[in-house]
């Protein structure tokens, strides 16, 4: 596959790793923001190939992991209603709510369906006019244009039996929150290439300046991640800060303006709770007033459902890069993919699942 295979070559990776080894002189802590990046790093074994001076910590960029339990419980309450077809990305089905997950609802007879695209959910609504079709609209900035389009199209085409349970989160406020924490130890960021594809990277420039930190916009293939790490180490060793773009084949400074335009038409910025971390001001999207007719939490009156997290789960610390999954006393014992305490153990992008599945201890 073009634009995939060439970024997975062993010889090129070796050459870049050699460059990293020659450049690094002291310990550095770098956070990759995105769970997809964590997945590649561990799946390709890159974390074991980097010099020991470099510590990679895993960021909060897993939409499945940061969706608050309250919202999972709301989703479950909606999905259990007989008139509802509940549609979702596959990742969300195993995330534990207070007492169940969506797979359990499905096994109990609930009509829970996996879709590839939010537009597929609109199609299902169109084809089932007698049922209520709800889409679980989670995601970061990357997914927001797709979810915005689903709502916009449903409105245009008059698909009234469609609605979304919305939990959108945004990266820059989360980065600020991490850097604002007194315990944080992050010295450089690998920013999420697909978020920046949509949003551009100009938003990161003030963050990099204010905290005097390098932010490298990085892609998702093994070679991208090794090069991103190299760029971060080079900047740190030279005492430079600022935003650099490793993923320039997809990312520009201003991002995808057509996508941003529709997002702004459908969504507005709001405070948002992050599972395990808490409320971060201005860190999410909600539907604008003109689209609240499509808000599933209002339509099914579940907005009041509250939930409490497991006290033992340290997911919040892990997603802020303060602890690693293996430091959790429950890791691999009381918390496994079969019986998770927190979401990072079940999402395929969750740091705990990646550690568990690919054997880090």
């Amino acid at each position, binding site marked *: *596959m073009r634009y995939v295979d060439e970024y*997975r070559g062993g010889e090129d990776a070796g050459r870049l790793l050699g460059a990293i080894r020659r450049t690094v002189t002291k310990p550095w802590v770098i956070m990759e923001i995105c769970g997809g990046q964590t997945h590649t790093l*561990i799946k*390709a*074994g890159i*974390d074991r190939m980097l010099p020991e001076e470099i510590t990679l910590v895993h960021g909060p960029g897993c939409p499945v992991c940061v969706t608050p339990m309250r919202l999972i419980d709301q989703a479950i309450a909606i999905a259990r209603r007989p008139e509802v077809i509940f549609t979702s990305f596959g990742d969300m089905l195993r995330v534990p709510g207070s007492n169940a997950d969506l797979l359990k609802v499905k096994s109990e007879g609930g009509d829970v369906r996996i879709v590839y695209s939010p537009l597929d959910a609109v199609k*299902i609504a169109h084809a089932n006019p007698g049922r209520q079709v709800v889409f679980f609209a989670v995601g970061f900035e990357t*997914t927001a244009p797709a979810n915005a389009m689903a709502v916009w199209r449903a409105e245009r085409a008059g698909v009234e039996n469609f609605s979304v349970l919305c939990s959108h989160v945004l990266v820059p406020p989360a980065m600020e929150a991490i850097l604002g924490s007194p315990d944080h130890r992050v010295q450089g960021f690998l920013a999420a290439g697909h978020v920046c594809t949509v949003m551009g990277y100009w938003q990161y420039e003030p963050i990099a300046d204010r905290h005097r930190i390098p932010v490298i916009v990085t892609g998702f293939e093994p070679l991208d991640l090794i090069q991103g790490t190299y760029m971060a180490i080079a900047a740190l060793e030279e005492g430079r800060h600022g935003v650099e773009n490793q993923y320039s084949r997809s990312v520009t400074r201003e991002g995808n303006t057509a996508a941003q335009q529709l997002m702004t038409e459908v969504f507005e910025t709001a405070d948002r709770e992050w599972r395990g971390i808490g409320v971060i001001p201005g860190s999410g999207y909600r539907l604008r007033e003109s689209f609240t007719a499509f808000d599933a939490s209002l339509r099914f009156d579940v907005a009041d459902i509250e939930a409490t997290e497991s006290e033992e789960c340290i997911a919040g610390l892990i997603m802020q890069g303060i602890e690693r999954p293996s430091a959790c006393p429950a890791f691999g014992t009381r918390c496994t993919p*079969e019986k998770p305490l927190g979401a990072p153990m079940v999402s395929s992008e969750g740091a705990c699942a990646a550690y568990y599945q690919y054997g880090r201890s």
Partner: protein
Amino acid sequence: MRGLLPIRAQLMANDTDPDLSGGMACPIPISDYPTVQLAHGGGGRLSQMLIEEMFVAAFDNPVLAQLHDGAILDIGANRLALSTDSYVVHPLFFPGGDIGSLAVHGTVNDVAMCGARPIALSAGFIIEEGLPMEDLWRIVRSMSDAAHGAGVAVVTGDTKVVDRGKGDGIYINTTGIGVIGDDVEISPHRARPGDVVLLSGAIAVHGITIMSVREGLEFETRLETDSAALHTLTAALLERRGRDVHVLRDPTRGGVASTLNEIAAQAGVGIRLDEEPIPIDEEVRGACEILGFDPLYVANEGKCIAIVAREAADELLQTMRGHPLGARAAIVGEVVEEHPGKVFLRSRIGGLRVVDMLSGEQLPRIC
């Protein structure tokens, strides 16, 4: 299934009254799983738990304890292989095959993986009221063609019809028997350090073909299932160097990764895989990328893993490649003393990682 009923009754009794004493306690902690989950049948960790902690515990006997694809029975001077499998695939018809051909190939292969020559099959049909007779006829003809092609006879059967809504069109169970040659000794326990892992062809084709026609995830592809009877391939290996073939397995549900994990655990050895030589089609890779699947965990229906003595590996590789179903065979790994019970993979860029047993079903990863 008749044999399972007492245990089921016990499970239900325990479910309503956890303090109920006397009789056999349910070995699967009910607090964890009060009901059976889909993943209990998915071929991964939960399946393994159900099989080992409930079925093997209940039916406890030395033949079953081998945990092979089939049972190996000594009857007089003969050794017979006996294996059974139930087919619940949805949709019933898919590119390159259907539930009927799959039901023949799957069981023929399970018998073949015992090192046996398959002789006869039984067929049990559980049919949902309302299944179009035309569909049933198509399935039965396809079974008949597959059986003829494999040179086995369907010698006995059973038919049940269940109420509309209580079955997915049709479920088929087949049981096969076969005869094992004199100098053949196939068992997962025979995998030993130094052995070489052979794989007969490109992985993940069947699972991805089925996904391509699943409602909600459809994509266009020329892929067809790899479903095929593998007994002539295994026979060729056994004929060439029977004593040097230690383990044979067809990596169906749970894929190559789960099968190798089972072997590593049963033999108490480590397995080291190499990503680079593992054959995989471009289209399968493309589909795995968009679904976020790891092809190592995707089902195959016409592929065979052979663990063989190192000194015989090249010769057996050539034998595989000389067979129409093994043209793309490759050496993909080795058995090692280190990390017993675990499978490691060297990635294309040279990194090392654990390939764990799949936990639950693989779900399309989109975010």
